[in-house]
C-alpha cells in the first residue's frame, strides 16, 4: 500500500503547518474518529446484511429452525447429516438438485470461457462499427433473468416457438421438446445462458487483450512466429490473470443458476432441472425449514470455495 498517499486535514481551526511538524501518528491527519465516521454508513449495511448473515447462517444450520414455530432447539449437525444419509426425507431431492447444478455448471462454464474469448479476439482491432458490435454482443446481458426467461420460454415453445420454426425452415427437425425433455432442457438452459452472458465475459477479455503490450506481438513477429504461435505464446499467457477472473466468476454465476430453470424449464422433466439454489429457497422460504436450508447453503458455499481455491492453485502453479 505504498501508493496510498496520506492526506488529511488538521482540525478546521488549526493552521495546517501545525499538523505537519508532528511526523507520525494518526492524530496528524485530524480527528482519530474521522475514518470511522466515513465508514459508518456502509459498515452498518455490511455488518447487518454482509457479515452477520455468514455467522447467523451457520448458527441457524445447527438448529431445528422452523420459520413458523417459536421453538428452535439446538440439534448440532443433524441438518448436515440429513443431507448425507440416504434414509432422510430430503436426501433424494437434495442430491438431484446438486446433480442439476453440476450438469449445468459443467457444460456452461467451458462455453462461457471459450466463446467470449473468440468474440473478444474478433473485436480486438480497430475497424468501423466496432463499438456497435461490442454493444450488440453485450446487449442481452442488460436484460434481467425474468425477461430472458419469459422470452426464451416463448422462443423454445415446441409448437409456437421461433426456434423450432427456424430449424424446420432449414430442413431440421421442427418438433424438438426444448423445455420439457432431456437432454434438450439442458441444451436450452446452457444455450440461453451462453446467449445471455457471453457478451459480459467478452468485454472483460477485450479489456485484458488491450492490456497486452503491442511490442510483444511485434517481437514475436520478428522472431517469425505465425498467428497461432502468437496466440499461444503471447495472447494466452498475457490473458492468464483475466482468464482466472473470468473462470472464477463464471463458475460462481453458473453454480447459482436459478431464474432460467424456474422460468424456462420450470424444473422439467419431473424435477430434473431443479437447481441447488431453487432447492435451498424452497426448503427454507416455502417449506419454512430454515435450519435445513441454511445447512444446504453452508455446504454449497464451502463446495464453491473449494472450487475457487483449486482454480487459483492450478493457475498460479502454471504461472511458475
Amino acid at each position, binding site marked *: 500500500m505504498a501508493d496510498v498517499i496520506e492526506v488529511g486535514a488538521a482540525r478546521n481551526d488549526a493552521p495546517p503547518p501545525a499538523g505537519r511538524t508532528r511526523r507520525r501518528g494518526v492524530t496528524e491527519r485530524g480527528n482519530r474518529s474521522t475514518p470511522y465516521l*466515513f465508514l459508518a454508513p456502509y459498515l452498518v449495511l455490511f455488518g447487518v446484511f454482509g457479515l452477520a448473515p455468514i455467522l447467523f*447462517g451457520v448458527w441457524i444450520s445447527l438448529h431445528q429452525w422452523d420459520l413458523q414455530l417459536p421453538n428452535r432447539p439446538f440439534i448440532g449437525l443433524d441438518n448436515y447429516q440429513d443431507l448425507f444419509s440416504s434414509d432422510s426425507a430430503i436426501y433424494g431431492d437434495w442430491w438431484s438438485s446438486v446433480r442439476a447444478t453440476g450438469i449445468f455448471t459443467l457444460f456452461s462454464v467451458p462455453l462461457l470461457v471459450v466463446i467470449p474469448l473468440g468474440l473478444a479476439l474478433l473485436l480486438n482491432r480497430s475497424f468501423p462499427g466496432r463499438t456497435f458490435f461490442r454493444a*450488440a454482443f453485450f446487449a442481452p446481458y442488460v436484460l434481467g433473468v425474468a*425477461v430472458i426467461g419469459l*422470452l426464451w420460454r416463448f422462443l423454445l415453445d415446441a409448437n409456437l416457438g421461433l426456434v423450432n420454426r427456424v430449424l424446420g425452415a432449414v430442413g431440421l427437425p421442427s418438433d424438438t421438446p426444448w423445455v420439457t425433455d432431456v437432454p434438450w432442457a439442458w441444451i436450452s438452459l446452457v444455450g440461453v445462458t451462453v446467449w445471455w452472458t457471453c457478451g459480459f465475459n467478452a*468485454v472483460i477479455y477485450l479489456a485484458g487483450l488491450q492490456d497486452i503490450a503491442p511490442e510483444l506481438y511485434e517481437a514475436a513477429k520478428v522472431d517469425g512466429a505465425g498467428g497461432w504461435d502468437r496466440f499461444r505464446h503471447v495472447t494466452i499467457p498475457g490473458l492468464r490473470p483475466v482468464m482466472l477472473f473470468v473462470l472464477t466468476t463464471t463458475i460462481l454465476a453458473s453454480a447459482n443458476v436459478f431464474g432460467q430453470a424456474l422460468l424456462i424449464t420450470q424444473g422439467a422433466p419431473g424435477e430434473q432441472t431443479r437447481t441447488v439454489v431453487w432447492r435451498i429457497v424452497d426448503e427454507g422460504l416455502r417449506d419454512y425449514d430454515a435450519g435445513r436450508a441454511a445447512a444446504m447453503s453452508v455446504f454449497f458455499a464451502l463446495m464453491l470455495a473449494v472450487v475457487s481455491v483449486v482454480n487459483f492453485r492450478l493457475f498460479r502453479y502454471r504461472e511458475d
Partner: protein
Amino acid sequence: MSKLRPVLRYAVLLLITAIFVTPVVWMLLTSVKTYDAAQQVPPSWLPNPFSTYGYDRILNDTANPVLRWFLNSMLAATLHTLLVLVTASMAAYALARMRFRGRGLLFALIVGTLFLPPTSLIIPNFIIAEKLSWIDTLTVVVVPGAASAFGVFFLRQFFLSIPAELEEAAVLDGANQWQIFRQVLLPLSKPALATLAVLSFLTNWNDFLWPVYVLFSPERLTLPAGLGLLQGAYVTDYPVIMAGAMLASVPVLILFVFAQRHVIQGVSRSGLKG
C-alpha cells in the same frame, strides 16, 4: 485475399449480431401482435395487423397491476442507487486515503465477500429482514443489496488512481476531510460514480430471486417478480407476456444506449484487478 478478409469479418460479425439481437426484436414484434397472429403456425415476422392488444390487457389487469410494479421497480432501483453511491463513496474514501487501525483487515473482509455466492446468505438475510419487519415492504428490495462489496471495491480502486496533490493543496487551504471529499475528490470521480450508478440501477432493476421471496402483496411487487406471475396467468398468450417483458426491458435498454460507455467500462475494469 486482403480485400476479402474485411468482408468475411463483417459477415461473421453480422451473423453473430443477428443471434444476439433477433430474440429481443422478436419480443418487440410479438408484443404488438394480436393473440391469433401470435398463435399462427408458421408465425409471420411482422405484426399484421399491428395491435396494442398485449399492452391493453396488462395495463388493465387489476389482478396483475403491471404499471404499479413498474413504478415500484423504478422507485426501488433509484433509491438503491442513491444509497450505494453515498455509502460506498464515503467508505471507499476512508479506505483509499486514510490510515486507521484495522484497515487491512476490514478491506480483506469486504473483498472476501465478493467471492461468496450471494445466494448462500439468502436464508439468514430473510430472517434478519423479518426481524426488522421489512418483509413485503419497499425497504427490503432497496437496502440489503447495498451491502454488496462491489461499489466500495470499485470506487477505492478509482480513488487510488487519482493523484493526491490536489487534495494536498486543499489541506493547505485548511479544508477538512469532508470538504476535500465533497469538493475535490467527488467532482474528479464523476465518471466512476456514473458507472457505479448505472451498474447499481441495472442490478437492482433486474433482481429476481430476492424480490420473488420477500414480496407477496400484488401491489408491492417489483416488475421482475411480477413477470413470473404473468407467465402463470397468461400461459401461451404471448403478446401479453411479451408486452410485460418489454416494460421491464425498455428502461434498461434505453439506459444502456445512453450509458453504454459507462457500463462497458465498469465491466472491463472489474476484470482487470480481479
